[in-house]
């Protein structure tokens, strides 16, 4: 009788062990399956991210190219400020041609999606303008832009470069 009991209990123990082992294996399988699904999902999401990133990279590349061209355009503008008063007709025609090149450059920038902004006479806005210097001109209103030293450029809503300006400060 006692022998039978001990055989039964050994059998029971074995079955219990097997059940535990099976449960462990099942949970491992579950964990692996979850991990696999997660990896596949991550990969799928990565592909979507890549598509989105590619669009962003293209926009950024346009912006970077724009930034470099803006510097060239700035120098054209700077040159125009120093244009001599009295020049011969030939030189004047030549200068006019040169300034057409400037217009062409500006067109390229606009085709890249960049838009210029910033005008003297408007009020300073730190979200759009950068104060490079200040003066005090009592006949004009406080915080008014007196001079646009470098025009600002935006691409959609994004400010690619703030307009660098000289502002009127009546409190100095």
């Amino acid at each position, binding site marked *: 009788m006692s022998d039978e009991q001990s055989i039964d209990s050994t059998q029971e123990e074995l079955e219990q062990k097997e059940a535990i082992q099976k449960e462990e294996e099942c949970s491992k399988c579950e964990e692996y399956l979850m*991990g696999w699904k997660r990896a596949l999902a991550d990969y799928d999401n990565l592909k979507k991210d890549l598509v989105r990133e590619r669009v962003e990279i293209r926009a950024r590349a346009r912006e970077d190219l724009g930034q470099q061209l803006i510097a060239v355009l700035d120098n054209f503008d700077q*040159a125009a400020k*120093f244009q001599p008063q009295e020049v011969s007709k030939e030189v004047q025609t030549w200068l006019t041609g040169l300034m057409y090149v400037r217009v062409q450059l500006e067109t390229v920038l606009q085709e890249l999606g960049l838009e210029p902004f910033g005008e003297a006479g408007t009020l300073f806005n730190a979200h759009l*303008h950068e*104060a490079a*210097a200040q003066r005090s001109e009592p006949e004009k209103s406080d915080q008014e832009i007196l001079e646009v030293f470098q025009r600002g450029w935006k691409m959609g809503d994004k400010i690619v470069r703030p307009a660098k300006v000289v502002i009127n400060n009546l409190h100095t």
Partner: protein
Amino acid sequence: MAKILGIDLGTTNSCVAIIEGGQPKVLENKEGARTTPSMVAVNKAGERLIGLPAKRQAVTNPKSTLFSIKRLIGRRFEDAEVTRDQKVMPYEIVRRGEGVAIKMGDKEHTPEEISAMILQKLKTDAEEKLGEKIEEAIITVPAYFNDAQRAATKTAGEIAGLKVRRIINEPTAAALAYGFDKKIGQQIMVYDLGGGTFDVSVLDVSEDTVEVKSTNGDTHLGGDDFDRVIIDWILEEFKKQEGINLATDALALQRVKDAAERAKIELSTAAQTEINQPFITSDANGPKHLVLTLTRAKLEELCYDLVQKTLNPVKAALKDAGLDKSAIQEIVMVGGMTRMPLVQKTVEEFFGKKPNITVNPDEVVALGAAVQAGVLQGEVKDVLLLDVTPLSVGIETLGGVMTKLIERNTTIPASKSQVFSTAADNQTTVEIHVLQGEREMAGGNKTLGRFILSGLPMAPRGVPQVEVKFDIDANGILHVTGTDKASGKSQTITIQGSTGLSDAEVERMKKEAEEHADEDKKAKERAEHQNLADTMIYTSEKMLKDAGDKITADERKEVEEKITALKAVKDTDDHKAIKKAADALSESAQKVGAKMYQADQAAGQSQPEQSSQDEPQKDEPIDAEFEEKKE
């Protein structure tokens, strides 16, 4: 689960990162920038400006534009730092109880409140970017911050509506970003040269902590000092050339500043740069242009003293930690200025080992804070570690060249296949020689195994298609299979432990590849030229055979002579001679080819005409055209 923000609240700039898909990632702010100036201002209209807009109006509103507030946080009014800042800062610092307050507009704010405004902006921008609410954060502080400064930083976070889960040390965060918390028993040095401050820390990594053994630094040394040195040089050079001081012209000075910063950045990668600012000013003689060439050598000469100045705090930190420089296993570079080659070279020479700079030094602290956030929110779990192949694997192809199939650093498991062909006519066997290494030529690399795929059907060279497939499983076991696509015959070889090389072995092989790069490149070029010559000879000979009596004896002789000439040089090292002979052969062969083509056409035309010119001939391809029918 809501994300926890990792925030590097810097003296000059701040940066925010999160963990996404187990990886730390920097979040851009609303203006699209990856770092935000740590500046707050109130303009004349009473509007509060934070970050870039605050910086943009600083010139016109100095008294109400607050920056470098981190220097004041958690300080007592009597502290030397406060006294110093009272003298140099354009804004007003007043006593508030034991501590300080700063005047902005007509109100006074504590440094905690100012920092909270910056944190609030970082939080709002991150929420907008992620499209979800952020409630918790980890904020980094310098290792030397005392309890009061840490507590004040935590308060700032709470005022901003963030539950600050941890305040962690900046050098620790930088080490975390590199995963150095796993380097148990190692000593790490963090060299942080930022915009306005220089900090150096020695870390000791143990089982479950990263302890800061010592810190040192210079609170007033940073990128701004380097910029100033370059600006001064430009101003001086211009004065020498034109006799004009640009420093007195605010707008010209602004252009000089921009140019100096650009030059500094360019010289991190280029050996020299041109500072080109035409029409910068004018005098009675007309407009003046600022055109200067700045070489890296000159820049290094200008900045030498500043860089050397960083070594004293390094030595002091080592001394305080009771360590010799040889005890430092890793050096982590933090801060934008560490991109400068001279800084890296100086540190490398001092320690005799390369510093770590692969993680963006402007972002490394925020990224490390995000890693810590990931641990807290349970996203960074070492459930599955994926291995990478330490060296490239591939096969030997014509001319003894190694053709790589799986490049080094590819995450495994990975597989890749490529189709190859035969190099000779009627070749019925191909040998697949499996190689590992970075050298261009097969001979310099390690042979992992080789096998022969036989039974290929007889065919001219280049016709049979043998697909070679490399497959490295998750255990690093490489299976190489060669399959003849025509007969379907295939052979496989299994190579154990292709990834199980010792670090020293991998390093040796990589170093060898670097050392022999030039000579290998030449050998590869030679093999390529020879392969090209072989192909030329083969096709020309075939053409002569096919030509039969369509060409004259003279024409045949000319091509044959050129073939002999190319054969004579093809096995030499003289690339130019091979190319010359190959070009000459190509020219003659083309002439003969054209003649054969004309002869064929003439033969075609002598046949009775089948159709009018408007109708395409039956045997020729017909361009499909269709017209859209309009109703």
